């Protein structure tokens, strides 16, 4: 297999937009091409993530639409849907297309538009990613899924609501340094703890927002990447799944798919958790970040809450997590999130992240979770 690098990245501002998801993707993709300093006609395929286009925009067939709006109507396109992990799944398959030699330059991206519908509707559409017969019928929501995880983690490890709140405070502090973040405002522990209850024990500020946005990146073979200005190498890209039904998971305090995908990614890259300098991970809810830091091997099981409380995951800490602000503050346009996390890690490894730069970062990880913890992707990146 050939080595593969990311040679260009682009994201829109995250937040509310009066543009379609295809327009948001196209803007990010054109920015990624400009960043790669490549003409559009070098792109040989598009791997695309979009989740609820059918519901919020009444739009299926979103990948050729996205390519058309970008201005590349003839290339092969494929849409990936693994709930919130969609564009990270797209990325993994694109890496395989370039590594195999089938293509030399491939575009990966994703976009989502949800703020054009009321919250009760978007909550309903996101719940479609849980099981229709077993989970949607009882009114399970995504905050509800992670509330069940939180309660199990608190019971098993003594994790506290204040430790979860510390994740939100930290990610808002990071987001305040990111001009593209949806929320660029610091918050206090009290703000989180006193916010409205959503699904006990999770409160409003334990939850990431609904977000419109797009993200894109350009992948290239080693031969092409060597002629680019700042290639960042893909050291590994791995995926794993777990039982779809929450009831079939033996221990709700863990996410086995994260543990499996991380083990595979570290093995592919020949790296260990101790080698990681910077992490962008899936903090759709504060407890999700705590469990992910444990599943990625950054902290011992049960100590992810303590790590957040002690500042070990803050900028300047032992291993900075979500310097972009994460899903919590940067925002979570679900089809774009995996690609956007990769854009941030590439920016960090190029040492171009400005005030949120992790000094001397050489190895980075992205982690994206889909649905009720049934899909996880983990990728590793490195400088030359």
């Amino acid at each position: 297999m050939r080595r593969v690098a990311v040679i260009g990245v682009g994201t829109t501002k995250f937040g509310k937009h009066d543009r379609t998801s295809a327009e948001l993707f196209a803007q990010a993709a054109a920015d990624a091409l400009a960043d790669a300093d490549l003409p559009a006609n070098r792109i040989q395929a598009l791997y695309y993530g979009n989740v609820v286009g059918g519901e919020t925009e009444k739009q299926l067939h979103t990948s050729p639409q996205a390519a058309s709006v970008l201005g590349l109507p003839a290339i092969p396109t494929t849409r990936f849907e693994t709930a919130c992990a969609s564009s990270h799944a797209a990325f993994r398959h694109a890496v395989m297309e370039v590594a195999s030699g089938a293509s030399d330059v491939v575009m990966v991206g994703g976009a989502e538009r949800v703020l054009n519908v009321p919250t009760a509707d978007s909550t309903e559409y996101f719940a479609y990613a849980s099981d229709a017969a077993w989970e949607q019928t009882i009114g399970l929501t995504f905050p509800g899924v992670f509330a069940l995880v939180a309660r199990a983690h608190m019971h098993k490890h003594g994790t506290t609501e204040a430790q979860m709140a510390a994740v939100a405070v930290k990610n808002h502090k990071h987001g305040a340094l990111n001009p593209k973040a949806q929320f660029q405002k610091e918050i206090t522990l009290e703000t989180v703890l006193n916010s409205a209850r959503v699904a006990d024990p999770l409160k409003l500020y334990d939850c990431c927002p609904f977000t419109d946005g797009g993200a894109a990146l350009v992948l290239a073979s080693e031969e092409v990447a060597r002629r680019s200005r700042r290639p960042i190498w893909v050291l590994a890209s791995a995926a794993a799944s777990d039982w779809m039904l929450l009831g079939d998971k033996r221990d709700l305090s863990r996410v086995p798919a994260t543990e499996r995908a991380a083990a595979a990614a570290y093995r592919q890259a020949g790296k260990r958790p101790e080698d990681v300098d910077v992490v962008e991970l899936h903090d759709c809810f504060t407890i999700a970040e705590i469990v992910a830091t444990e599943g990625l091997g950054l902290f011992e099981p049960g100590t992810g809450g303590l790590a957040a409380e002690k500042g070990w995951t803050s900028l300047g800490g032992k291993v900075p997590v979500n310097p972009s602000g994460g899903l919590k503050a940067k925002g979570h346009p679900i089809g774009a999130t995996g690609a956007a996390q990769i854009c941030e890690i590439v920016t960090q490894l190029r040492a171009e992240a400005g005030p949120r730069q992790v000094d001397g970062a050489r190895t980075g990880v992205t982690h994206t979770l889909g649905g009720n913890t049934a899909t996880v992707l983990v990728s590793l990146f490195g400088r030359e």
Partner: protein
Amino acid sequence: MSDARITLQSFFEQAREGKLVGIKCGGCGALAIPPRELCPECGHRQWSQVPLSGDGEIASFTVIRIAPRGHAGDAPYAIAAVRLIEGVSLLGRVVDIPFDELAIGRKVRFRPLRIHEHTALGFGPV
């Protein structure tokens, strides 16, 4: 041993009548919740229907306060993951237990619910 496939529909038709059932692998005896084609333990494809007691204890729980469009009128409502005494787990709406009495380890019993035209799983006090 029943030759009939245990479909999702047949599970919920029985659940509606108050009868909770699981499926047992003809190869290794593993217990599962239908539908499932292959046994993840041994790979066998022959399952038989077995009754489940409906008795279990709460493994985790939450109170949903912001509900999806289709359940908005019901909020707040409690949902629990329940480990049945047979070893399999199910999610259900918790009814007739005050929110402040919900606890991991609390014993509960299955009861069928009808929620917005759908049969759904519920758990209430023993």
